[in-house]
């Protein structure tokens, strides 16, 4: 991405951040490797308050430890809930471990990265690979 475009995007995002005043828009920092290569530790992201759709990168509280807010990708949404997976499948604790989450637990969606400067841009990634994962095996409830 050219410097001009990066700067423009940056300004747009800053304006959005001001406008949202952190009620509907916020900024967070990523820790951990489970979303590599899409997200790296230390990446700073703009998140918006919105439900998670399939392929979105979203925030959700860890059902096993509500003090921890997770960032993962939605790979399925169905009657059973929302299935979250890390893009870095072999280094991710996700729906394979804790199952689907209720849709209400996903309230923030990551839309763009503003730091580091070299990787400013919308959140995309090799999620095509992740989406080939089947939803986790279901057990009767």
């Amino acid at each position: 991405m050219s410097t001009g475009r990066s700067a423009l995007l940056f300004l747009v995002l800053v304006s959005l951040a001001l406008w949202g005043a952190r009620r509907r828009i916020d900024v967070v920092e990523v820790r951990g490797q489970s979303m590599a290569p899409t997200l790296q530790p230390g990446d700073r992201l703009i998140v918006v308050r919105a439900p998670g759709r399939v392929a979105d990168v979203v925030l959700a509280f860890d059902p096993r430890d509500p003090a921890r807010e997770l960032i993962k990708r939605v790979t399925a949404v169905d009657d059973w809930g929302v299935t979250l997976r890390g893009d870095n499948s072999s280094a991710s604790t996700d729906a394979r471990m804790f199952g689907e989450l209720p849709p209400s637990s996903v309230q923030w969606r990551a839309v763009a990265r503003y730091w580091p400067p070299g990787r400013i841009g919308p959140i995309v990634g090799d999620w095509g690979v992740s989406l080939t994962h089947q939803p986790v095996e279901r057990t009767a409830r």
Partner: protein
Amino acid sequence: MISLRSILRPSRIVDAHCDIPCGIYDPEQARIEAESCLRIIEKHDASDDEHFRARCIAIKEERAELVKHHLDVLWHDYFKPEHLEKYPDLHDTFWKATKQASKVKQSLDAGAAKELLSMIDTVDEMWKATGGLEKTRVSGRPS
């Protein structure tokens, strides 16, 4: 006045969490199972014992299935998009190798098992060339 600095300061840490990032990979795992297939086929062919031969077939199919499993894990967990740029035929290599493993599972053809070994060696070369030996084994592969 809200400063730019305060706007850009993250409000919280979000966790791309993993309980246990193991990150250990080695095509050797697939190769050992494939070698088992080849040796079992040879033992099968050398035996007249009907029951032994039946056992050989059952065990060979089990081992061939493990070859497919280990290749699959390498394929979707170890190899990353940047490796695909370096090896555009990566997907094709894995597709053919896992198909070959199916062939070994279905048949008693020692030639097919040898072909599978050479395909796993191709995967091994790609794994080594992408730094797998240093990055995904503890202190490199034991010699």
